[in-house]
């Protein structure tokens, strides 16, 4: 490019002027060769095109006109404006879960691209979200983003990659040698620790604008927030020492809230649920308690005794017990699930082992079972609703069984599982949207199942991990859901399931709780050991139902305390922001 400053020019501007004179070279060149000459009609079209997309104002949002079929919510528009015109493109987007941070980031990116201020973009997200980001940017914003797969994809203008790949050799050196007009990081709370390689890598990346997305800017203590902001704009909250003396009382308690609030507002935007026009519909939870048939009860007791015996024999070592724990959970779901695991188990143990006999005993117990109490109840529920329903189960075998069982009873249903490829997943979703009344899903997390058109869900069995329960509900209960969501939890009385449901529902009230707080609570709770593991141990080590009940109660209390603590902190944060 032929660029120069106009020092010889009599008029000088108060700012540097760059003139691209390549046009004159081209014109001279073509005069010399006698052409080829451009078409006047096309030249006029080019000028009219430039006029049509000219950015005539410093501070008027352009992106909306460019986005067909996207109607952003008011808080998303406000956020976009604020980031552009008040924060100059460096911000933490800290909306609570489900308020559309991705949409906000997409709009901000689009606006900068339209203005020609951004062309090279790096988007770092957890590996499981890479494709979802690419798809959303492509379909909702017409932004040609590319998922990083091979080394050469880094050369594309807009790349979405996982941070763990990006920070590794040989990618790292290449990325650090680049200049990015914009850097976007999803789930940015993972960058709370200054000493991690992730943090140092992001700090070194050369970037003009930068967006950090997180629903939980403060998880454990205030320094995390300080570190996050330092990544974005070092010094915004003063020096490290100043920050500590000015703003921090306890680990999680800020002081000088007014001042902190002002400083935070310069770099962070946090929209909350239940504020403004964004209203979520209600959740109605019904627990359906069932009595197992004598045959089913026999199998349950048999499996429980078997698992407990093995646990004692192993001397309380959980890690070698994985398949047995699975067995214990499966027995609450369906005999098919149990059967499959038993068969696999029997293959692993030597023939002469005394275990073989026990396993076969259980298999015989399975043979005795003629009907599935839960499945019968489920059909009854579905018939009553007479609307679209999603049924969740944890196990493939149960899913297969239910598919068959429902079909036999004249219900049109489709499966959905994590192992399906994208095309098949989309196809299943389309079928469910169209002809099928029931979807039976084993996977709730991951990406892309948005089922706002359905507002009934049945938890055929419950995961022992509350995050998974929340993910399930989140598929249906999200922005765009018009109806109140009805959740049915099936549980069989006198089994472990009953205790889990009791814990999740009555103790931490998770089915009705506002989403978003849960991950914080769990992270604090699970500092030593996961909730799932504790439940398993608790169950295996207890001798009576009563003992389990007591232990579950105390667990519930601990969770409740953490929850209150989190609520309190969130209240104080809110007051600061208010």
């Amino acid at each position, binding site marked *: 490019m032929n660029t120069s400053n106009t020092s010889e020019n009599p*008029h000088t501007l108060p700012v540097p002027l760059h003139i691209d004179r390549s046009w004159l070279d081209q014109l001279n060149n073509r005069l010399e060769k006698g052409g080829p000459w451009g078409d006047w009609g096309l030249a006029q*079209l080019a000028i009219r095109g430039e006029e049509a997309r000219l950015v005539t104002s410093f501070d008027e949002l352009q992106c909306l006109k460019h986005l067909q079929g996207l109607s952003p919510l008011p808080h998303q528009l406000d956020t976009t404006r604020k980031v552009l015109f008040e924060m100059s493109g460096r911000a933490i987007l800290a909306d609570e879960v489900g308020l559309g941070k991705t949409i906000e980031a997409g709009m901000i990116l689009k606006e900068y691209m339209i203005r020609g201020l951004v062309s090279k973009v790096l988007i770092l997200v957890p590996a499981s979200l890479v494709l979802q980001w690419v798809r959303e940017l492509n379909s909702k914003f017409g932004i040609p983003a590319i998922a990083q797969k091979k080394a050469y994809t880094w050369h594309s203008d807009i790349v979405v990659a996982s941070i763990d790949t990006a920070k590794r050799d040989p990618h790292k050196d290449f990325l650090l040698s680049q200049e990015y007009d914009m850097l976007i990081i999803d789930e940015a709370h993972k960058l709370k620790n200054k000493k991690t390689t992730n943090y140092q890598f992001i700090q070194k990346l050369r970037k003009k604008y930068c967006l950090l997305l997180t629903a939980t800017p403060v998880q454990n203590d205030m320094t995390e927030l300080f570190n996050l902001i330092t990544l974005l704009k070092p010094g915004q909250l003063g020096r490290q020492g100043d920050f500590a003396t000015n703003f921090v009382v306890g680990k999680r308690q800020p002081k000088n809230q007014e001042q902190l609030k002002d400083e935070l507002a310069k770099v962070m935007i946090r929209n909350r649920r239940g504020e403004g026009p964004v209203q979520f519909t209600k959740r109605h939870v019904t627990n359906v308690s069932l009595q197992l048939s004598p045959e089913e009860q026999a199998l349950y007791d048999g499996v429980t005794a078997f698992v407990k015996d093995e646990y004692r024999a192993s001397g309380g070592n959980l890690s070698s017990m994985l398949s047995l724990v699975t067995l214990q959970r499966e027995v609450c779901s369906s005999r098919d699930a149990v059967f499959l695991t038993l068969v696999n188990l029997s293959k692993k143990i030597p023939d002469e082992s005394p275990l073989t006999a026990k396993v076969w005993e259980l298999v015989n117990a399975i043979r005795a079972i003629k009907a599935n109490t839960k499945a019968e109840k489920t059909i009854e529920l579905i018939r009553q609703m007479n609307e679209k329903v999603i049924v969740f189960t944890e196990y493939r075998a149960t899913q297969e069984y239910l598919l068959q069982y429902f079909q036999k009873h004249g219900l049109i249903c489709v499966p959905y599982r994590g192992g399906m490829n994208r095309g098949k997943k989309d196809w299943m979703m389309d079928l469910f949207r169209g002809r099928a009344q029931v979807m039976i899903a084993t996977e709730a997390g991951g990406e892309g199942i948005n089922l706002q058109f359905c507002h009934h869900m049945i938890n055929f069995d419950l995961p022992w991990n509350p995050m998974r329960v929340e993910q399930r509900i989140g598929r249906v209960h999200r922005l765009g859901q018009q109806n109140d969501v009805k959740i049915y939890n099936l549980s069989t009385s006198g089994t472990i399931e009953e205790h889990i449901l009791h814990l999740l529902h009555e103790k931490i009230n998770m089915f009705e709780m506002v989403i978003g707080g849960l991950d914080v609570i769990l992270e604090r709770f699970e500092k030593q050991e996961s909730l799932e593991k504790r439940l398993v141990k608790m169950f295996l080590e207890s001798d009576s139902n009563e003992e389990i009940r007591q232990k579950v109660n105390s667990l519930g209390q601990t969770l409740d305390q953490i929850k209150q603590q989190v609520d309190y902190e969130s209240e104080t944060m809110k007051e600061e922001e208010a």
Partner: protein
Amino acid sequence: MSMSPQEVREHMMTYLESTECQIIEKSPYHVTVKLSPQADRQLTGRPYYWGFVDRTGAEPETLSFTFVFDPERYDQHEQEKTAAARQQDHLLSRYYGTAPLLPQLGPGRIQREDVTYGSARLQQIWNAARQEGFCLYLFEQPPSLQRETLFSAPYEPWLGVCFKAEMACDMKKEELHFIGISLVSGQIASPFPDRLKGLTLSPRLPENVHIQPATLSLDAAAGLLESYLTGKLAEMDYGWAEQAKERLKEELAVIDIYYEDLLKEPDEEKLAAIREQFASRRSETTWQYEPKVHLSAITCGLFHLRSKG
């Protein structure tokens, strides 16, 4: 500025007609078109295919598209059409049974694409137009009388350039300036389109005209245009730049304070790293906020216009 479906359609049609695409069907809401080789090369992103055609001399097979400008109206229109078609077939289908309407696949398939103001296709059209209309060499076409007059008409060469001025800091604003300068008199016409108004321009040299010799070289004329334009730009309000400079100063001050203590680090190795970080953070900030103006050309060319007076 946004555009109505009609305006989008008009832009699209201008491009398709200028590039001699074969229009198969059109309505106020859509156009179905078989692209010309020129347009296909620009729009379909098939460099390998065109490389193959160029090397082997094979007969090129261009793609066809249905561009829809008003999807809602178009769909409605189409539905009515198929409904009508179905009724007509009623008699036949009584004897032969109804055959479902199958979507056409394979090479004859015509892709549908909705084109609206923000769509990538329209941007692509504009960019292609800019590329193919970049350097111009045009003559004003005289009224038919000119051929019969005795004296040849004097024509004056003009250099016309459409400049885009981009005022950028952390935000941005743009302006277009289409200006022209006579290579004979050095007179500047701004805006140049005013001078061109009502004229028919074509690359064909008309009969019975003569071009006046230029007194200005192209480079000199370009220099004059530039200095005229910078003069105009200098009169602009630079409040935005002042504010950006102010923001930049504040941001730099914040950074300086933050690193002040850190830079007292006694460990040499650590200090080097901090210094580097400090420098890169400062340069990033300057990159982000520093105000500047950038000038480039959208189109340029020589316009031979009939001398006035």
